[in-house]
């Protein structure tokens, strides 16, 4: 990957952060403390009014905090010049907010322009970023109004990445996109993040998106209270209280299964289930599918146990008992593979 060069990411720490609006009886955020390790995606999730967007906007001082401190790479944001601070932090919002009067190349290189890069470097960076988000180079000459919603959102991400910031803030970045394109954008983003390894604060109200995108999830409740901060797997396995249990949904078992691929579990290959060629017509799953996919196929086609294939070669069998076992005791270490690689 040409973009980014060496990995550049900064840890982020909220230290007893409180935000109180003048005249408001209750604080918008109350004594918020958590740390996002460098290179991880922290999703702030909760119902509307829980202060998740406020918390995010405190980081680049779009809103000023009342007390406490926020540290990026160990340094407080409080003494910093606002504009300088913001130029070091990628910023993506739901409505994208591209500049309609500037073409795509100009849009995505805006922060480098503010930083005073020369023409050659700007042009190279624009081409690099378009390639990164999978848009053809000639799109750079177009105006935002000539792009589709999904393309605009990609450009919004590219613009935030332009100056290679160690930290990115993303406020419901895929919230305004239709479900099919949203999933595509989420997958693209996860692929990008595996290569770029930025520290990211990602705000959403959608718990499924939080589970999918987050290395860690901060679940917040009305009144700006942080209820639980943990990995998706551990939150699904051990919700801190009824609020979290209700928020993650009654199907949290299924959601956990969706976090684990068959490659990560010990498949059955002994006894009656010794490996054999798949019988013609019998349903099978790929070893890169999740346990949830496997369960779904088993239920639909009444095949149990079911053969798992690794590039068309039999790799073992998945059984209901195996799935039960994962749900029972897998919570401690069934972190997502992408997250595990960073620690």
């Amino acid at each position: 990957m040409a973009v980014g060069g060496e990995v550049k990411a900064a840890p982020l720490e909220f230290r007893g952060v409180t935000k109180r609006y003048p005249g408001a009886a209750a604080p918008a955020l109350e004594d918020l403390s958590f740390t996002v390790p460098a290179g991880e995606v922290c999703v702030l999730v909760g119902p509307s009014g829980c202060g998740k967007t406020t918390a995010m906007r405190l980081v680049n001082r779009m809103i000023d905090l009342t007390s406490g401190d926020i540290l990026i790479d160990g340094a407080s944001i409080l003494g910093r010049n606002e504009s300088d601070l913001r130029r070091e932090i990628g910023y993506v919002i739901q409505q994208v907010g591209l500049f309609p009067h500037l073409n795509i190349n100009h849009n995505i290189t805006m922060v480098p322009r503010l930083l005073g890069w020369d023409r050659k470097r700007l042009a190279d960076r624009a081409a690099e970023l378009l390639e990164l988000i999978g848009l053809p180079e000639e799109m750079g000459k177009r105006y935002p109004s000539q792009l589709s919603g999904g393309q605009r959102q990609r450009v919004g991400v590219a613009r935030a990445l332009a100056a290679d910031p160690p930290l990115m803030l993303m406020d419901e970045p895929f919230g305004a996109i239709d479900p099919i394109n949203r999933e595509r954008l989420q997958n693209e983003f996860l692929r990008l993040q595996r290569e770029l390894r930025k520290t990211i604060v990602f705000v959403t109200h959608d718990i499924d998106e939080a589970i999918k995108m987050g290395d860690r999830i901060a679940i917040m409740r009305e009144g700006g209270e942080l209820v639980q901060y943990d990995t998706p797997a551990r939150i699904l396995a051990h919700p801190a209280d009824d609020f979290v249990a209700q928020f993650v949904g009654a199907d949290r078992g299924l959601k956990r299964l969706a976090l684990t691929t068959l490659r990560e579990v010990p498949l059955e290959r002994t006894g009656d289930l010794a490996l054999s060629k798949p019988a013609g017509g019998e349903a099978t799953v790929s070893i890169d599918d999740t346990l949830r996919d496997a369960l779904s196929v088993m239920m639909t086609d009444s095949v149990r146990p079911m053969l798992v294939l690794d590039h068309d070669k039999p790799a073992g069998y998945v059984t209901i008992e195996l799935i039960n076992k994962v749900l029972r005791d897998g919570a401690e270490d069934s972190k997502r593979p992408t997250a595990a690689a960073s620690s």
Partner: protein
Amino acid sequence: MTGLFLAGGGGGGPVIPNFGGGTSKCVIDNGRFCWDWFTQNWSGTFEPALIQHIELTVIAVGIGFAISFLLAIAAHRARWLAPPVTFLGSLLYTIPSLAFFEIMVSITGINWFTVEIALVSYTLLILFTNTLAGLSGVSSEVLDAAHGMGMKPAQVLWKVELPLALPTIIAGLRVAVVTVVSLATVAAYIVPAGLGKPIFDAIGSGLFNTKFIAAGVLCVALALVGDGLFAGLQRVLTPWAAARRGAA
């Protein structure tokens, strides 16, 4: 067709001035439009009048825009400024032009300065309102993105708000130019300058058709050209607006 109802000093009939050149039958009969007389008098009458008219207009719109622009930027920052400025602009705009010129003469005397003050006054409302509307019309998410990526307030104004306000600002300039070109003819009532002068002369001399029509047509043409110039300017300066229309 004769313009007898507006009798000049000659006692009933149209008074046809003879500016040296040969007086054609068309002129003597006060025909609808005497091309020969027009071409003979182009450089002596119409060309200087047209140039003066352009000067009157350019100065009025230029100064009016400078004042309105600064006021609009101030009101964009300090919202409370907008209502009083709009009220003052409306007040000036509603004063009948002839009365306005007369009032100004009593204050500043009979000169170009008086004329320009009145003309400038008529541009303020439209230019201020449109500039402010253009600046306020920039969507909040664009501003959020601009601030969020670390633009300073002045950069947001010059790189984002003003470029996006250009179509609305130029729309205001187009209206202002047409208004001033039209009103500047009335200014000849005070100062004998611009295309208003041949129009008043023609009326005063029992409505000499050729002079009246020539000056009137030049005036309309000037307004259209001024409007067209700004329309062209907008096309050049805001290619993105055309792209947006194409996409919509």
